């Protein structure tokens, strides 16, 4: 038996994303943000996208390219504090933004990836983040129904992948990537290195290749991946 080879051309993989799609994008700040896949999506040009990402990176970086190009209708996120451009788009009504408590965004995605319909939590009760959410009582205490999130596509950055799509992340570039890699119908991975089968130790795999559809190797990294000079 041999595990299938999922290597493919990045542009061809991203070309599957249609107008109106929902797309999860890994990363927290620069670490773990799939910069090359984002550029490929800008080049592909699909519009009316709903994006799910922890943050919107910084002006002129990462997710901001998709905001600049006008391809985004809606953004589900936790914090835009480092991207004044994203805040301007939100305040002027050009994109709709849904804010989540950060851990609840993670948990909603985890639920989506685990085949669960929703999770219950008391986070945000008594704040405006609870507005409009269904409340159920468990053990006499109110809980909000936090519905699971799934996407049509997930764009994932990994440090290492093998040809089957087993993935390993490094340092704080892990963040939302392993959660999103489980929660989308089509999962596209950019990896800094793609190794032959067997080169990635089975115990070192963070995301099983079962969740992954397409793997592409990055080659030389663009300067967008580098340490941000502030």
């Amino acid at each position: 038996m041999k595990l299938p080879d999922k290597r493919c051309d990045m542009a061809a993989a991203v070309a599957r994303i249609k107008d109106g799609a929902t797309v999860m994008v890994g990363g927290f700040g620069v670490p773990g943000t799939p910069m090359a896949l984002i550029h490929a999506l800008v080049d592909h040009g699909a519009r009316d996208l709903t994006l799910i990402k922890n943050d919107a990176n910084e002006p002129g970086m990462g997710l901001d390219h998709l905001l600049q190009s006008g391809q985004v209708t809606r953004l589900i996120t936790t914090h835009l504090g480092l991207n004044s451009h994203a805040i301007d788009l939100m305040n002027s009504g050009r994109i709709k933004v849904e804010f989540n408590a950060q851990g609840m965004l993670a948990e909603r995605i985890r639920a989506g990836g685990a085949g669960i319909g929703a999770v219950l939590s008391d986070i945000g009760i008594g704040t405006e983040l609870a507005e409009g959410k269904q409340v159920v009582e468990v053990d006499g205490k109110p809980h909000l129904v936090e519905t699971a999130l799934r996407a049509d596509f997930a764009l994932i950055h990994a440090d290492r992948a093998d040809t089957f799509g087993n993935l390993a992340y490094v340092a704080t570039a892990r963040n939302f990537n392993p959660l999103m890699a489980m929660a989308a119908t089509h999962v596209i991975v950019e990896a800094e290195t793609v190794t032959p089968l067997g080169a990635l130790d089975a115990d070192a795999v963070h995301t099983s290749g079962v969740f992954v559809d397409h793997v592409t190797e990055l080659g030389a990294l663009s300067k967008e991946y580098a340490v941000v000079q502030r």
Partner: protein
Amino acid sequence: MIARASREIASGMVVNLGIGLPTKVIDHLPADFPVCLHTENGLTGIGPTLPPDQADRNLIDAGGAYVSTVPGSAFFDSATSFAMVRSGRLDLTMLGAFEVSSQGDLANWKIPGKFSPGVGGGIELAQKARRVVVLTTHTDRAGNPKLKDECTLPLTARGCVSRIFTEMAVIDVTPKGYALVEIAEGISLAEVREATGAPLTIPDTTRPVF
């Protein structure tokens, strides 16, 4: 104030330091002090902040600062990170504030029409850390008290704040409202009362000065 707040961290604690003033607290602890720092983006065991030329591009804290690891550090995903927060593994969090109420309500994430970047992990930290203390200036830039009877801004969490450190005083939130614990050197009782927007209980005992 920051040096005083650093004494809030006890040996053996797991601590999350919010963005801004709180992150400076760690500079006042000895390098070998036994404490585990947590950051929301997936690291326990935060080491010193590094300048750009020494930074690892994949290693930041939740505020975007380039940090390092210490022997025994661990990385994990965002769901695991907040599992730690919600299940009560954080002994202490130190957060900034726009407003605090005398019942311990905290508002620190949104000023409608002016500042609305999103809440990030703030709600979970405020609601679920075992102890929440606030580091803030006593008044805002216009001189208005940040310590009030009731918050007017959107809340982060209700009844979460135990203690407030400002440049003027250390104040506890008690069932009877604000109670002065310590006062800064050179500050008078009248000045603290004037800058506080709600009644302040003054203990009969000697007030330590910090």
